[in-house]
């Protein structure tokens, strides 16, 4: 079995198809900072196109991540951040990543910002599963100051004491996951984000990410379904094309239903965000959409492999790759089991509250 080499974290053109040249991480950024000012719905459509045209689901994932980090820095409304980071990010000259996850919950994060003699801070700690770490130039890092005060801080990769170790996932080869280690890194006061506290900042960032992740996913689902249709059209059994057999048509229908349901959840969430109808830090509809589409995508992947038989089990087959890539969303962007607990708590407390009132 020939293993895939890790693909670069940039959009790549599949054979015979033109590169969608206009789809870059700049697209949702403000026009005055070099972007195109796309809405969530329009940006989601772009990301779906990237997902459709690229065999590695990491391509829309990374493209949207870089944009989300740039938007987070833009939201600080600071001219120094805009010139040093946002404009270069819009131009593709800098790439940002979000360094949040540790083997601890958010109230017990161990990465520390300690006041330094003469001003500023020293940053020490480690973040795991940092998406895009391998090729990032800038990290937004969540670190604890005295008194349990979590803060987001911008850290340039080339600062002394910053190092990255790759983490290889079972899918998403182009995602460039990494462990980022901060060893006595000198941090100036002005690198600390001040628009809101670190916990709130991280939750708002993740709330938006949960929806955008679905966009590339729906594009890839369409591509995988088309690969199954092509296989069914090319494969003849007992004198009949698979695509002409009701059992195969039913299987494709299942894929189509899963795809369209996922798209509807994505579009509804994107439109709600554009209309300002979402909770900014933990939206029930957006979070439910992430949970549901991840569950549907896993079922989709298995169904696609069933339709393609042995071919679907080949390492490079779209169905097989999709099956591995989707697994990354089980734990990523809000682990499925944690989301379920939170949704359950929300439902129970809402019901009990309403029952008390009535």
């Amino acid at each position, binding site marked *: 079995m020939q293993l895939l080499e890790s693909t670069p974290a940039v959009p790549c053109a599949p054979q015979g198809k033109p590169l969608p040249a206009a789809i870059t991480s700049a697209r949702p950024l403000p026009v005055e900072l070099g972007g195109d000012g796309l809405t969530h719905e329009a940006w989601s459509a772009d990301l779906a196109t990237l997902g459709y045209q690229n065999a590695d689901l990491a391509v829309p994932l990374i493209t949207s991540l870089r944009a989300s980090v740039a938007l987070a820095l833009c939201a600080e409304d600071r001219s120094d951040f805009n010139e040093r980071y946002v404009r270069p990010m819009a131009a593709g000259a800098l790439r940002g990543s979000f360094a949040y996850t540790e083997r601890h919950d958010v109230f017990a994060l161990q990465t520390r910002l300690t006041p330094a003699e003469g001003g500023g801070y020293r940053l020490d700690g480690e973040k795991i599963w940092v998406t895009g770490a391998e090729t990032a130039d800038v990290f937004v890092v969540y670190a604890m100051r005295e008194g349990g005060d979590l803060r987001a801080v911008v850290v340039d990769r080339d600062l002394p004491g910053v190092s990255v170790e790759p983490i290889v996932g079972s899918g998403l080869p182009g995602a460039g996951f990494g462990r980022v280690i901060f060893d006595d890194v000198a941090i100036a006061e002005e690198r600390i984000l001040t628009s809101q506290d670190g916990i709130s900042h991280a939750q708002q960032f993740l709330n938006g990410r949960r929806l955008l992740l679905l966009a590339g996913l729906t594009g890839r689902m369409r591509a995988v379904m088309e690969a199954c249709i092509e296989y069914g059209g090319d494969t003849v059994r007992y004198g009949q094309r698979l695509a002409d057999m009701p059992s195969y048509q039913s299987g494709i229908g299942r894929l189509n239903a899963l795809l369209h349901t996922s798209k509807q959840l994505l579009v509804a969430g994107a439109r709600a965000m554009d209309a300002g109808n979402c909770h900014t830090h933990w939206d029930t509809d957006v979070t439910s959409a992430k949970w549901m589409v991840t569950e549907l995508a896993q079922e989709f992947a298995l169904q696609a492999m069933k339709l393609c038989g042995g071919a679907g089990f080949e390492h490079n087959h779209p169905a097989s790759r999709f099956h591995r890539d989707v697994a990354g969303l089980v734990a990523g962007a809000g682990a499925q089991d944690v989301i379920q607990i939170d949704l359950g708590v*929300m439902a129970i407390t809402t019901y009990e509250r309403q029952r008390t009132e009535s």
Partner: protein
Amino acid sequence: MKVKFSGTLLRFVDFRREVTIEEAASPFAALEKLGAQFPKLKPVLFTPEGEVRRVHRVFVSGEQVLGDEFNREISPSDDLEILTAIAGG
């Protein structure tokens, strides 16, 4: 005044789903009393600048407290509920 908590915050209030605090004049004052009664909860509820962290959804007798409503008047018979959902990356 009774205050209820969701799972994420339980460990800061000795795993008690519901606690009782002194009467408070506003939701903000009620949260301050909570912080005084449970010191570990205080930095979880409030930023160092003294603002209520935006990740918490606070309800007064079933009605969510939004934005600038934390200083509105509440009655001694009101109860509080704090829902906090925290997502990972």
